Structure formats: structure tokens, C-alpha cells
């Protein structure tokens, strides 16, 4: 039997892997893209918003491809809700400048987008193999990775380079010792999400949208996550609404919480309920989000291996970014693999170039800036509840006209904060927040 040999193997057809596959296939490399799902995207789930800058860097003509990318709606309005148990303070930004073709960001569904994206890799010449789980590596006598084993009969595949984009459950990266540990519950978020179907006109009416060229992306803090460190979201699709919430897994574990009950509670909030009322539940799902942060992320290269995407912990939770980091990293992994082929050098020493490229890009710069964000959330579990309930109370007082002199109203607001947290406590929280944001 002849050995099945390629120029490059990509493990996992998500945003990182497919970006690597497209980049390498376009340069003429013989690429195999191995996906365990029935189709690319069938195991993938996010909030979610996709950013076109990262797609464009991989596929400059993505918007002109036929069929066109299966986006839901462009993001033309976005921002934050600070939710208290019975009210909300909204910080939303809506602008005509969001309306361009293609837009900067699109609300999307990953089972649809990833399948389309992988089809572009096939069009570029990559071989996509689905329903195939990579189970281990094949190493040479010096311990260098020279291929992978799969769960197909006679399923060994060889290549001088493997792009490892297996996702958040990075068991293969752990096997190589690149990830030193499995995800500790305090460094990973568990998110659950429901896709709720509603007729297009109803979505547009409820969210104040003028047709399918407008869409809203809302990130929600506070009561949506029981005041615990986490976020919730509502994104408008064409004929569906994506609604979900996530917490550090540690919070679910310590408090013995059912994620689906926290989600159900959020859905029944008086501000949220009318937006989804009468909708049909189309799908429920769950996914982990790696939040190792810059200082604990896995090593991203080894002899014959490059790691990209969630497998490498490439998520900026503060800005709900992940797929764009993954696509950029996947592209850079692909570019590095192309150079490695030119030099015929697949050593870790040479592949270090990949890390250098990432360091020079927003991927590592952002991860570095927010390196303390997870610690901040982890160390100040009271933060959301304290300040978000305060913001709602302050707004209530500010907007009331009950014959109270405004000076007394202002004093009341200050007092309301003091009752929640003393001066030193507030000062400490703000210091920690600034540190978390890398200011």
C-alpha cells in the first residue's frame, strides 16, 4: 500500500483550519483538510459575529463568490445592555457608516458559514475529508510530527507539516505537550445558545430594523448571568434570533447551576421576553470558549506542527472576537508552511516564524493587552452585580421628577453607590478593571 502523502495536513475545518487550507492551496500546495463532523461547521457554534477584514485577507473576493457567503445580517447597530433584575441601561451605537458592501461585521450562523468557507478551500484545490476524527500523530524516529492517524480504516496520512486547528478541546495539542494542561474551569467559559425562529418582518419591527441590510448585535451584562462574571447576547439573524449566555465554567460548577435554566431566566426577563415572544426554538447548543489569556496560552509551534484558533486559546472575550483571530492565525500558519516548503525546513526553529508573525499582528497584541482580563473577572465576582444594579438605580433616580431637588437626587446617587461598596472597594475595583483592560 502506498503512503497517503500531502504537502500539508489541516486538522479541523473551522475558521482557523480553513483559512490555513485556502492560503496553502492557493499557493499550489497539496492540502488535506480533515473534519470530524458530517460537514464543515456541523460541530461549530458561536454567538456570533464574523468580521470581514480577516476573511478578506484570506479571500480578497469573498463577497463576489457564488454562492455568496451565507451571512445573516450586517451589524449596523451594536452595543451593551446593563441589565438589572427589572430594568436596563442601554449603550447602543447605530450609524449609517456601518452600511457598506461588504460590511465590516456580519451576524452569522457557523454551521452555515463554515460549510461555505470550507467549500472555498475545496475550490482553491484543497481536499476536504469529513466524518473523520484525527486520533493521534505519526512521528519519525526523532520525535518530529510527520503525519496523523485517523479513525478511518488505513487512515494514516503523512505530510511534513500539520496545522492543528482542532478547536477548544485541544486534546491533540495536549498530547504533544504544547498545551501544558487541560482547560481549568476558571480559564474557560461555557456558553449556551438558542436560535429562535421568527418571521423576518417581526424581527425588523421588534428591533427597529429597516430591512435585511440592518442588524443588531447586543452584548448584555448583569442580571442575564445572575450578576456573575459572564456575558449574554442577542443577535438578529434574517429570520431568527441568536440568544445566549455564558459564564466561566467554574461559576456553573461552584454554584451547581443548570446553564439552560440561567438561559431560560434571561429569556423571561421583562426587557427580553417581548423580543423573542412567539418564536420557535430552532436549535439549542453549547460550546466552550478558551480564556487562558496571553500568559497561559499553549505553545503554538513544534517540529512539523503549527497551532491556530481556539486550540491555541485565541479569543478576545472582552470584544467577543475569536473567529477573526482564528482566521488571521490560520492564514499566517499557512504562509509559514509555504515558506517552510520553500526552505524545506519544518523544524520548530524555523516554524517559530509563525509566532513572530502573530506577535506583530493584532492577534497577540490584543491578547497581550487583555492578559489580565480573565483574572479580573475571576477575582471580582461581585463586579457586574454591584455596578450594573447601581447604574440602573442611578438612571432611575436621574430620570425621575418627584419634586426632589436635583442636588438631593445627586447625593442620593452617590449614597446608593456607597451602600453597595465602600470608597476603597470602588477604588480597588476600578484599579483592577483598568489593569484587566491593560490601561
Amino acid at each position, binding site marked *: 500500500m502506498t503512503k497517503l502523502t500531502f504537502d500539508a495536513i489541516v486538522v479541523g475545518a473551522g475558521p482557523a483550519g480553513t483559512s490555513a487550507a485556502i492560503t496553502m492551496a492557493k499557493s499550489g500546495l497539496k492540502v488535506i483538510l480533515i473534519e*470530524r*463532523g*458530517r*460537514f464543515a*461547521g*456541523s*460541530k*461549530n*457554534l*458561536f454567538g456570533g459575529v464574523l468580521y470581514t477584514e480577516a476573511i478578506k485577507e484570506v479571500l480578497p473576493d469573498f463577497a463576489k463568490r457564488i454562492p455568496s457567503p451565507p451571512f445573516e445580517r450586517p451589524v449596523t447597530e451594536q452595543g451593551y445592555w446593563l441589565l438589572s433584575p427589572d430594568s436596563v441601561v442601554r449603550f447602543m451605537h447605530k450609524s449609517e457608516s456601518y452600511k457598506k458592501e461588504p460590511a465590516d461585521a456580519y451576524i452569522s*450562523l*457557523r*454551521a452555515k458559514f463554515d460549510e461555505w468557507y470550507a467549500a472555498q478551500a475545496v475550490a482553491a484545490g484543497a481536499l476536504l475529508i*469529513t*466524518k*473523520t*476524527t484525527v486520533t493521534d500523530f505519526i512521528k519519525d524516529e526523532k520525535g518530529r510530527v510527520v503525519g496523523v492517524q*485517523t479513525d478511518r480504516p488505513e487512515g494514516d496520512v503523512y505530510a511534513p507539516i500539520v496545522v492543528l486547528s482542532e478547536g*477548544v*478541546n485541544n*486534546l491533540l495539542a495536549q498530547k504533544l505537550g504544547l498545551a501544558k494542561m*487541560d*482547560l481549568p*474551569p*476558571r480559564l474557560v467559559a*461555557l456558553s*449556551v445558545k*438558542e*436560535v429562535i425562529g421568527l418571521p423576518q418582518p417581526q424581527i425588523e419591527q421588534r428591533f427597529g430594523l429597516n430591512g435585511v441590510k440592518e442588524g443588531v448585535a447586543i452584548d448584555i451584562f448583569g442580571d442575564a448571568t*445572575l*450578576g456573575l462574571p459572564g456575558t449574554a447576547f442577542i443577535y438578529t439573524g434574517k429570520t*431568527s434570533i441568536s440568544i445566549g449566555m455564558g459564564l466561566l*465554567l467554574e461559576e*456553573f*460548577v*461552584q454554584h*451547581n*447551576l*443548570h*446553564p*439552560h*435554566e*440561567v438561559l*431560560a*431566566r434571561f429569556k*423571561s426577563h421583562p426587557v427580553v421576553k417581548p423580543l423573542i415572544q412567539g418564536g420557535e*426554538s*430552532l*436549535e*439549542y*447548543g*453549547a*460550546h*466552550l470558549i478558551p480564556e487562558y489569556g496571553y500568559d497561559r496560552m499553549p505553545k503554538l509551534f513544534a517540529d512539523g506542527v503549527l497551532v491556530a484558533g481556539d486550540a491555541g486559546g485565541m479569543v478576545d472575550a472582552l470584544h467577543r472576537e475569536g473567529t477573526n483571530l482564528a482566521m488571521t492565525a490560520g492564514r499566517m500558519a499557512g504562509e509559514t508552511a509555504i515558506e517552510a516548503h520553500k526552505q524545506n525546513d519544518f523544524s520548530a526553529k524555523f516554524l517559530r516564524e509563525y509566532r513572530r508573525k502573530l506577535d506583530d499582528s493584532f492577534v497577540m497584541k490584543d491578547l497581550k493587552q487583555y492578559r489580565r482580563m480573565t*483574572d479580573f473577572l*475571576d*477575582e*471580582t*465576582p*461581585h463586579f457586574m452585580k454591584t455596578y450594573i444594579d447601581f447604574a440602573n438605580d442611578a438612571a432611575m433616580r436621574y430620570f425621575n421628577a418627584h419634586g426632589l431637588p436635583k442636588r438631593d437626587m445627586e447625593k442620593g446617587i452617590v449614597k446608593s453607590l456607597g451602600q453597595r461598596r465602600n470608597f476603597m472597594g470602588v477604588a480597588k475595583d476600578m484599579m483592577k478593571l483598568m489593569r484587566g483592560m491593560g490601561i
Partner: protein
Amino acid sequence: MRSADKNMDKNFQPLDPALRESLPKVNVDDMISSVKYYVDEEKSHLWIKSHDVCAQCKAKPCLFFCPVEVYKTDNEGKVLVGYQACVECGSCRVGCPFLNIGWVLPRGGYGVAYKFG
């Protein structure tokens, strides 16, 4: 950093009972009725490594944090694994305080298949 053990964790504050009370009861079967699965009838990709360890675990957080309630207990309190409903998120592998849950990826093509994602 906080300790994984809530009893050792100075930042741990128990949830306000009123807040817990406000959580609606949800039948998880209703949640997953729309989820498409290709169940591997021959092989579970999840397993309890040692039932003795579970017997000593009082909190049994897996019964709660699993988003599809894969883990349930029988009349004797033994933990049962309903892997057929698993959405492969990975929470149980890392969330079990005793790392007592065996977890591998389902065979290629099996398991959850999101239509929307």
C-alpha cells in the same frame, strides 16, 4: 486566582437563595428536541472512570453544569451517562472536580450535527 474548591476560595460567595429561586425549571428534553444527532449506537465517547469517586462526591456538579444533562443518577445514586444527548462541549471533562469523566471525540461523523450553530 481563585481556588477550584469553593470551600478554599476566599472570593466565593454563595448564590443569593432568592436568585436561585428565580431560576425557572426547564425540561432539557424540550431544549434538545430540535438538535440533530447521529448517535453512535456501538460506542459511548463518555464514561465514568470510577464510580467509587462519584460516590464520594457530594456536590455532583456534573448533574447541573452539563448543558444537556447527560449525567443523571439512578435510584441508588449511581451516576448514569446519557452520552446520546452530548453536544461535545467538553465541560464535563474539565469541570468534574475529580477529573473522573473520560472524554474522547465521537467517531468521525457521529454525535451532534448543528444545522445553525
